[in-house]
């Protein structure tokens, strides 16, 4: 969706302010929130696409006002309500919950991660490295990983990253629609229409459904 989270190229947020010697967490509740967010996924099935969908549905004024872990709290609460784990009578998704992850399983689980790359045989690539592509001018109402600032622009395929599920459909529980994802190179001059050094460029990773031949 064309939401507040899609921030690339917006003006008005001022300078980037940094904190010297920033700690990993600023409060104990942030520690617990990070841990809950990572742990609960082992017992209640959801993916990063589902979590991001909830974060993007936070109303803009609240999104801008909220810290990172506050956004996670809002999103996890929403996910758990949707799945009937938190009580509010609005559960729309039936899920099978499993047991809590055990303490001794945590470090191995972190090291294993959740690999999302799929078998190359699941989809043939439509584009090869070096191909000229144009980003489709589409405005999905769903979760999407297509930033607004590249839509309609021409770029060149830099690298074929392999086959991945499409977040737009996965986040809506409409299947993975496995397809190639590509790193596409754009010229900074072309994107922003300004006199910047001619070689400066921007690389964005984009799913095949977001692209058409140029």
């Amino acid at each position, binding site marked *: 969706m064309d939401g507040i989270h899609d921030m*690339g190229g917006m003006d008005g947020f001022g300078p980037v302010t940094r904190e010297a010697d*920033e700690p990993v967490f600023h409060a104990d509740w942030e520690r617990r929130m990070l841990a809950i967010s990572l*742990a609960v996924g082992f017992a209640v099935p959801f993916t990063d696409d589902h979590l991001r969908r909830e974060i993007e549905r936070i109303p803009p004024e609240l999104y801008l006002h909220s810290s*990172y872990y506050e956004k996670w709290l809002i999103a996890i609460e929403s996910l758990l309500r949707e799945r009937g784990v938190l009580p509010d009578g609005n559960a729309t998704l039936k899920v099978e919950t499993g047991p809590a992850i055990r303490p001794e399983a945590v470090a191995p689980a*972190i090291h294993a*991660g959740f690999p999302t790359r799929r078998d190359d045989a699941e989809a043939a690539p439509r584009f090869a490295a070096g191909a000229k592509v144009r980003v489709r001018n589409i405005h999905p109402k769903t979760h999407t990983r297509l930033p607004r*600032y590249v839509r309609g622009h021409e770029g060149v395929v830099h690298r074929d990253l392999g086959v991945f599920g499409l977040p737009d459909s996965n986040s809506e529980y409409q299947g993975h629609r496995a397809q190639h*994802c590509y790193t596409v190179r754009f010229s*900074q001059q072309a994107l922003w229409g300004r006199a910047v050094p001619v070689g400066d460029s921007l*690389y964005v990773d984009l799913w095949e459904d977001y692209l058409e031949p140029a």
Partner: protein
Amino acid sequence: MSKDHGHDHDAEEKGLALRVKTLESLLVEKGLVDPAALDRFVEEYETRIGPKNGARVVARAWVDPAYKQRLLTNATAAIRELGFSGLQGENMVAVENTGSVHNVIVCTLCSCYPWPVLGLPPVWYKSAAYRSRVVKEPRAVLAEFGLKVPAATEVRVWDSSAEIRYMVVPRRPDGTDGLSEAALADLVTRDGMVGTAAV
């Protein structure tokens, strides 16, 4: 910050702490999380997984050309050689700064960041200011960080909002020929591996 503002902030923090505690209690009661496992997650990210991991990767690349080649060809496997892998780094790409190219990473749509090598992202990386500006005026943002990139050097911004997590391999500083790999690792900073510092 005004006194009133500070007061509101304190009240908000208390409210958030209470909500998180309530959430944890409910999940524990339902058997969906184990408090001891939560402690382990925190411990991993507070003490073991952070930019020191990435610094070891960079230092190895500086001293071992064959390793550097593997890192630039298949970063996920090369990083795993040093024992780092997993959550938010399942598919890694390393991009190298040279005399003619400077790289910087961002995630404009949320805050994607290579956790196994850099740990959890700092607040500025997640901020609206960084996410909105570094794709549009990277040189101005880098200058605010104290990094003036010469006009002849190409700036490459990597918006890592899909499945790949990126890390920057900074240039090895001049005059470090005699240093051990461990001493070189001490020179490498988090910002250097995001691309907002030279090293």
